[in-house]
């Protein structure tokens, strides 16, 4: 989808990006995080083909953005940190203009405008001048402009900046819908809890260097389409009644390994922690074995790391700080 290779970008007195390399998977939502001055906005501008790097290359579906920015722009929607709108135009005119400027045929302009407005829940705003809209509504119009040509990649720099909590939640829901529609998203923000609501991957930058790029499959509330995949999961079982000898039950490491061959199991009296590759069916089968074996399961679920903790870990190399996922399965037994 998007491939960044050895990207370097310099400002006159300091390097903004140093040898940044990563690749985004189709349909992923990547949280781009890092302290101020890390190079997030510069990286986004390079990906959007708005800034020419010193060296390195950015490819979008095989097209080198650095060589053919005009060609690559057809598949990219970009919302800058401080986005602009034509205040004197109506929201409808803004979307019409954006659609026409991005190559939507004239015959489809009305239909496309209406569809995007409905998708963003701003149909009622269409006849109003943009300057009369609220911050959240303006944000949606700006996003509408970015997605009106159905880009394959949507790059958003601090999209929730200045929004109230309700608007942020609404924006998160919107991003999940866009992801469900097959759009790949790269989103930067300082508000990690907001990114946590929809991100599937995390890209950490510091001082222009990429610290880490990884999947957030074990991060709380990572996006729904990855839930049923077979992947590394960290499962935690909490028992109501302490169990003295785990090995005597169907929960022994040997039996668990029949479900998940490469598993790591740690136990104490009331807790069982299993790190293994599971799919949903395997996870269900494990719970069933526990219950059938007589364990009084108080809670059973995937242990997920918060994005903030994951970020801290990436930046400082600190040990994991874990929090229990809200999607625990509780058993009455």
């Amino acid at each position, binding site marked *: 989808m998007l491939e960044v290779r050895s990207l*370097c970008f*310099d*400002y*006159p*007195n*300091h*390097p903004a990006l*140093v040898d940044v390399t990563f690749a985004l998977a189709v349909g992923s939502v990547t949280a781009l995080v890092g302290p101020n001055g890390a190079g997030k906005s510069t990286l986004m501008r390079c990906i*959007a*083909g*708005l*800034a*020419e*790097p*010193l*060296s390195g290359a950015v490819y979008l579906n095989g097209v080198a953005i650095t060589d053919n*920015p*005009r060609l690559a*722009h*057809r598949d*990219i929607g*970009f919302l*800058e940190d*401080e*986005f*602009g*709108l*034509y*205040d*004197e*135009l109506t929201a409808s*005119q803004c979307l019409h*203009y*954006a659609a*026409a*400027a*991005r*190559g939507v*045929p*004239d015959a489809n302009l009305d239909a496309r405008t209406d569809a995007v407005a409905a998708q963003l829940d701003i149909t009622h705003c269409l006849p109003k001048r943009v300057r009369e809209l609220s911050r959240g509504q303006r944000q949606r119009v700006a996003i509408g*402009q970015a997605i009106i040509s159905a880009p394959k990649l949507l790059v958003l720099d601090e999209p929730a900046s200045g929004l109230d909590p309700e608007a942020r939640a609404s924006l998160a829901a919107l991003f999940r819908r866009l992801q469900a529609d097959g759009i790949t998203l790269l989103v930067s923000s300082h508000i990690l809890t907001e990114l946590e609501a929809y991100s599937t991957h995390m890209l950490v930058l510091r*001082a*222009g*260097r990429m610290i880490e790029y990884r999947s957030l499959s074990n991060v709380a509330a990572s996006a729904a389409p990855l839930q049923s995949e077979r992947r590394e999961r960290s499962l935690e079982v909490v028992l109501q009644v302490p169990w003295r000898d785990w090995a005597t039950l169907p929960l022994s490491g040997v039996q668990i390994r029949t479900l998940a061959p490469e598993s790591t199991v740690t136990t104490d009296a009331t807790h069982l922690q299993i790190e293994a590759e599971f799919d949903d069916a395997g996870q269900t089968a494990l719970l069933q074995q526990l219950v059938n074996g007589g364990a009084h399961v108080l809670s059973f679920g995937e242990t997920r790391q918060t994005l903030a903790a994951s970020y801290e870990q990436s930046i400082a190399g600190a040990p994991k700080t874990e929090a229990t996922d809200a999607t625990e399965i509780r058993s009455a037994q």
Partner: protein
Amino acid sequence: MSMQPNPEFRRQLWLQISATRLILAPVVIAIVVALLASTGPTTNAIHGTAWVALSLTVLFWGTSVVGTSIRDEITGRTWNQQRMSRLSPWQLTSGKLFGATSYVWYVALLCALVAIVSGRDASSGLDPHNPAIEYVFLLALGLFAHSVALMAPLAFQSGNGEPRVSVPSIVVFALVFVLFQAAPLGASRSGGEDVGTEWFGISTTPQLLAMWTALCLAAWGILGAWRAMRQALQVQQLPWALPAFLAFMGVWAAGYASASDTSLVTRVLIGATLALAAASWVLMLWEPQSLFAWRRIRAHWASGEQARAVAGTSAATGVVLCAVVGALLVAVMNAMSSGAEVAGVQPTGFFMKTTMSSKLSLTSHAGAFLWLALVLIRDFAFTLLADTFTTSPRRRSAVILLYLLFMYLAVPTALQVVSSAGGEWWFPASSVVVPIILALVTLLAMVGALTSRMPRSIIAPKS
């Protein structure tokens, strides 16, 4: 195949044209005409007022509107959306050039109608033989001014490649004012004599020559705006347009040269070289060529992308190169002609007469053009050196301006104080030997400083 309307032009119409504005303009004009008519029986006053209003509308209001159209996109943070759109460079150029000024042209049309109707009965002012020339001249000059206003912020980018918002409109206005004043219209309107002129030996009227000149400038301006837009939209292109324009200006100026013993080629070459040299200093001063750009060029070159490296060089580089080559050619040609006078440019044209008080004589020295080539290289080397120790385009421009003032004002003044003929040691006049030696010495010093500093500086800093 259906024609898709230009979205940028349509957006500009949404912003510029409304029923209220369409009605307002003729109402205001009608009121002014009625007031003028009621104060006295003078069609001349109405015609004169309409003409002035037309000129101000086209040249100043229109120029201001076009200049603002880019500035507003940048300050309104919508410029990058346009850069990422699928609008072609021509769609954006024409949309802004003609769409942003749509209301201006509407008002101008109304003013022109009043001027034409009242001008039929006016007793003075217009060229009685062909009044249309004035209107065509004004239209062309307006288009040229609008194009320059659009091109300027795009062509002169800031250090990070963004268009420079701060290119002052006053510069464009000054350019328009000079051209307007230099044109024959002011003289003919104030009862000036109907002078004749020659251009490349062709006898014509200054009015007609001014009209064709303005039309050519308008075409060059639109071409320049389009190419600046292509650059802003990251369409790779080779930097041929500015040298070509300056060569055109050289040809244009050479048309006024009256020396009969000089070949046309020599005259054109001299005119083009001088135009290129003048543009070189302007670009050296104004165009930011940051280390960032040099590092990128170096990186492209190192990775075997020579075409991208060449395309990434500044306009100043190309223009200085052309000027140096031109100066050396003139020097060689002059040397081969055994020191005969290269050209004696007599300001016979109207423009020349109004701007030059006496004969402009290009002295007959091959050495003078050799000196010109040397100082151009030296000054360009200094601009590169300035890139290595300045961090902002503004500071860079200030440093280069100080350098130019030092080299071309302070040093000759100081030499003049030392000796009454000291200035001639610096600028070639009666003798060229000393100025050439001094130019060579300063050039070598500059290149020495540059070669010791540049290789380190264009390597990306390590974090």
